[in-house]
């Protein structure tokens, strides 16, 4: 089994996620990019788990999925509230915490 291909795939996915988080203006897309990053990590975990012949990697990936579900729930709720208050999900406009 070749570990490299999986790691490359994960790296590319992760980089796409980072780009999305940094460059996208739409809040929903930013959230989705975060999901991309999490799943890139999951691929790594599962790949290493398979490579080393143990289930710890898959267990971790399951944890990550569970946490990610909760995180998206919270994130979408926040974005929904922002949309209700401002009729926009452009995250550049949300700078109420500016010092």
């Amino acid at each position, binding site marked *: 089994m070749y570990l490299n291909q999986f790691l490359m795939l994960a790296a590319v996915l992760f980089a796409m996620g980072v780009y999305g988080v940094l*460059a996208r203006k739409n809040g929903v897309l*930013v959230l989705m990019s975060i999901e991309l990053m999490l799943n890139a990590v999951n691929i790594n975990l599962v790949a290493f788990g398979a490579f080393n012949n143990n289930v*710890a990697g898959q267990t971790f990936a399951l944890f990550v999925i569970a946490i990610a579900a909760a995180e998206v729930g919270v994130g979408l709720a926040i974005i929904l509230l922002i949309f209700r208050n401002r009729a926009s999900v452009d995250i550049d406009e949300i*700078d109420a915490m500016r010092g």
Partner: protein
Amino acid sequence: MLRNAWLIPLIPAVSFVLILAFGRRLPAKGAEIGIGAIGISFLLSLVAVVQWVGRSEPREAVERHLTWWKLGGVDIGAGIHVDGLTVMMLAVVTFISLLVQVYSTGYMDGDRRYTYFFAALSLFTASMLLLVVADNTLQLMVGWELVGMCSFMLIGHWWEEEANSSAAIKAFLTTRTGDVGLMLGVITLFFAAGQNFNIANLNRLALTGGISHGLLLTGGALLFLGVMGKSAQFPLHVWLPDAMAGPTPVSALIHAATMVVAGVYLVARVYGVFWAGFSIGDGGINLIALIGGITVIIAAALAFVQDDIKKVLAYSTISQLGYMVMALGVGAWTAGVFHLFTHAFFKALLFLGSGSLIHAVHSNNMSEMGGMRKRMPTTFWTFMVGSLALAGIPPLAGFWSKDEIINGASHGYSLFMVVGLVGAFMTAAYMTRAVYLVFFGEYRGHAHHHESPKSMAVPLQVLGVLSVVGGLVGTGLAGSKWRFSNWVRFDIPGASEIVKEHAFNFPVATLSVALGLIGIGIVVGYYLRNMFPRGAAEKSGLVRTGYKVLVNKYYLDNLYIDGVVRSIQYPIARAAYWVNQHVLDGAVNGVGIGARKTAQVVYDVVDQKVIDGAVNGAGFTAEEGGIVLRQTQTGRVQTYAAFLFGASALIAVGLVFFT
């Protein structure tokens, strides 16, 4: 029961869920589940105590561990470590909790979040019990944080008033400041002990020289930072008086059984680390004893100028916690733990008593009480017992433990013996002041009042009895087997030096009692007989300055807000913006200037202002110093994310190239 001690925290945890799920539909709105569950836990704890005492010597701690997962030899899971300290704590926590819950049915009657209140109390107790039985530092930390969260929920129970919710936030943030240290300490000791979280193993290694002294000192100091936050030791004690914003039963629980004693418990639990790290056996001065000693005195002094009766008690708790920490710092392990034990009874009693008063007169202020002796006889008598126990009058509970601490300090730590004696004098005096203002003289309030209902009076009476007889456990009156120092001690191989006992020292005891009586006498003379000149504050500038310093709580709150919070808030805010503007040309420069300016601010604030006793200008200085640093705070998530990713990329590159 010793092997199944995990049931004791589990039962209140289950009751928390049940109350949340079904509480509202039950006839007593969930209180019956809470009381029932904690009652069962209390009985089980008593069984555990009896079984532990009944074991034949030498008693070995019962250890059980459930592994959640293992990774590369690191074991993460939950477990129980049951020994004398554990069973004692289990019994005290469940007992106080039970009484507080019974009391709350009266005190909180008709509250709009009655069910929720009982659920939170159950979770609070469960978290504390989880912390107490922990066999590894990780589980201990989980319990510790849960306790902090529950205290936040309960202090801010009446969050509609802003003062209450900000008190809750203050408590949370102040303890959190210490918790950073706790977390770092746990990590340090985890690696020091060969990637192992187990507490017994940690103690053994520390005492047998398996860990280097430097690591123990670092780890111990970091852990102690957490203790300072949680157990309200100087200078992180500022949250505890404000925490009085919570309902009085919560205050009783926080002060007597959960939350603040968690810190003392932590020191007692991983005592090996502190003993070896701070060289406690050598005498002289060490950080733990010093912080404890300072806390004893400054908190006792603050108790003199309070009008709010709960704040008097809050400062008294801080001072008594100082005693416990000081005892542990001077090597009097048993004395410190014993004081925790007796203090739980009389402090819970005093708080519940004050709750009874507040319930009756609808005010916390002693200036609106007075003459309550005749109107509330049960409260009066129980409160008197509690005050005398706190003042250390024999043969009440406080006498035995406080005397043991002072006696323990007299062996190699004479400075702290003096601190203990002065503290005993001050304790007696401020309690007499409070008792006089509340119960004697003329009634100064307006509310129509009455003796409290039975559900509140009975817990008071039970605690009153225990405050009288509780200390006798320390004397071996009930057989040497039941003597406190026999069944609660620090039993780790190599710890024989720590458990050494000092014989009852008659001159020291007499001296401390005499000082206590003098303290009472002076205050009684001042109020009742008019013996000392009045209006000293108006006549003498020195007294006035002292009074002002005390009323302003040594300006510590001002220092924290103006000096620390502002000086960090503005510079960082400004720095952020500035970096944004000049990222390309001047990042390095900016950091340099920023650091210098911040240092300037710290110098100005800490050095200049504190000495001058006026910290008000600090905000101004901070603002000036921070002009450069303001602007990283753009408010845009993506800027922050860019910094985050940039930094992690740098770290990653560093890791790749340098390892």
